[in-house]
């Protein structure tokens, strides 16, 4: 059994390594995105800022300051000061403000480009109001955007590679008759699936480690926790994403359909899982929807380890969720797997 798994595993690795276009794409894309965002951050993205309002009540009082009536800004009410500061540090809020009877204060992450612009808007509004607000010092280390976005980019690359590298390829194998050829051998579906998971995991882990190491060395990105824990998160996350790809590939016989289905999963996952920006300002429905995606749990856990020094035990809930998702996806993938079209 192991020999058969190894045979398919090795052949798939060779196929991937010799397909230079795909290999290059897997390496160049995340690196280019990383450096592009680091050095030429353009502020492009949402035309809306997320500003936390620190107050004792849950309801936003817009009469407290004219700034709170500014359009195109999402105001999020926060009652816990420590959590609010943490969100500013982690780029989950562009700005934090607090208004009281004696005036107001605001907190900003000096490394946040969007925070800079939000501050300008705040000062403009404050000038019109008579200059009530003053900047306060934020405690703890401010986190650079590059530190925050690195897990997102690695996760996104992993997502594309796992879903397309398995889902799309299996559909191609089915369409061109290669799966049918394998069906005529003693190879079992579970052995084939195990080989695909092993092959893609090996490749994506190697690429992710390579990209992470290079980025870490050059940009000195933040790493507060254990590399081993991060590796476990990446491995468990990769299995869940590959398994998800196998569900799509279980029966589909058209590459176009597979591409459409995979994109239908990829894009919402990329937008809702917090790859590029925090979902802090998003509605509760979007935040709940994000939880159905493995990438959300991968990024939450990875950021917790890299930015906050979370331990293995701390990220266990995310790992268990990912493992549970993998089990469900693998069951569905194996249950509905078809070697060739009828």
């Amino acid at each position, binding site marked *: 059994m192991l*020999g058969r798994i190894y045979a398919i595993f090795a*052949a*798939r690795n060779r196929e991937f390594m010799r*397909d230079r276009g795909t290999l290059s794409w897997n390496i160049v894309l995340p690196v280019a995105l990383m450096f592009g965002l680091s050095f030429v951050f353009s502020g492009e993205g949402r035309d809306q800022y997320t500003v936390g309002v620190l107050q004792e009540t849950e309801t936003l009082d817009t009469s407290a300051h004219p700034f709170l009536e500014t359009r195109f800004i999402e105001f999020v009410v926060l009652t816990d000061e420590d959590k609010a500061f943490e969100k500013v540090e982690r780029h989950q809020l562009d700005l934090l403000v607090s208004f009281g009877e004696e005036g107001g204060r605001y907190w900003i992450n000096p490394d946040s480009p969007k925070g800079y612009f939000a501050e300008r808007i705040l000062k403009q509004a404050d000038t019109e109001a008579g200059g009530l607000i003053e900047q306060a010092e934020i405690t703890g280390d401010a986190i650079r955007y590059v530190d925050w976005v690195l897990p997102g980019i690695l996760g996104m690359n992993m997502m594309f590679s796992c879903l397309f590298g398995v889902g799309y390829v299996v559909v191609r194998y089915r369409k061109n*008759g290669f799966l*049918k*050829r394998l069906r005529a051998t*003693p190879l079992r579906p579970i052995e084939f699936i195990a080989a695909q998971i092993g092959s893609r995991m090996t490749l994506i882990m190697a690429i992710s480690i390579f990209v992470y190491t290079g980025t870490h060395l050059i940009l000195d990105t933040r790493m507060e926790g254990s590399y081993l824990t991060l590796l476990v998160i990446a491995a468990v996350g990769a299995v869940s994403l590959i398994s998800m790809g196998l569900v799509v590939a279980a029966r589909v016989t058209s590459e176009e359909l597979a591409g459409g289905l995979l994109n239908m999963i990829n894009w919402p996952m990329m937008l809702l899982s917090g790859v590029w920006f925090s979902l802090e300002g998003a509605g509760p429905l979007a935040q709940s929807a994000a939880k159905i995606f493995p990438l959300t749990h991968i990024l939450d856990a990875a950021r917790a380890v890299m930015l906050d020094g979370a331990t293995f035990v701390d990220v266990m809930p995310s790992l268990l969720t990912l493992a549970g998702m993998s089990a469900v996806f693998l069951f569905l993938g194996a249950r509905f797997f078809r070697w060739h079209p009828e």
Partner: protein
Amino acid sequence: MRVALEARHLVKHYPGVVAVNDVSFAVEEGTCFGLLGPNGAGKTTTVEIIEGVTPATSGEVLYFGEPAGRRFREEAGIQFQNTALQDFLTVGETLEMFQKLYDRRADLDAIIEECSLGDLLDRDNRKLSGGQRQRLFLAVALVNRPRLVFLDEPTTGLDPQARRNFWELVQKIQGHGTTIVLTTHYMDEAHVLCNEIAIMDEGRIMTQGAPDALLKQRYAGMIIELPVADVTGDLDGIDHRVIENLGVVEIVSDDVARSISALSPEVTDLNHIKIRQPNLEDLFLDLTGHSLRA
């Protein structure tokens, strides 16, 4: 001689189509069994049901008297009509990969030599000619030292020389005692290679037996063939058939001289007459009413 393979009452329904309709046959160990018929006759579906890659609507397949299962997969070698191999692998790597899928393994060097793949081992699978590709597919079917080999239209698309080379290869394999199930729509191929044949049309087996025995049973003599355009008179008194798409008239005769004498007043040019042995294509035509070459 033991029965290596037995198909019992195989039926395969697709929406609106009965692709295989109550097909039964048995293949003795060490023989070459040919499943013949035109495209769409149901040969490939029948064979794929036996191979276990297409589920039957009903019926059963026995391998050495037992339902075909794990042992069958381990001991059978299959060359599909349409298949693909993994991209970016060389011929050598492909053979190694497939060999590792089996517990039962052949001597790869011997297969490479037998299939004349020695010079192609480092070549990318995708860069093989039709004949080279077929030889590789056959080699893949042999990597597990099979007791039973399925060859599904192995020479379709090959030039005459490549076809004859392939036949020699199949005869060599059969010489090792391997049982072969061959599907083809080339009647000459079946006649050369098969000990026994079954002719299929519209999902059914029309007849079954040794090729020469079937021909002897059906034809007591030679076939006289002449162009339809040369017939000017009335052939009502002579037992004949007209093959429209080939533009010929055929007469089966156990006394050629007498038949030609009878024909001479009715045709413009006796020089165009051909006299030949009946073949499987004639048999097919008689059984189904339409030509394989249509």
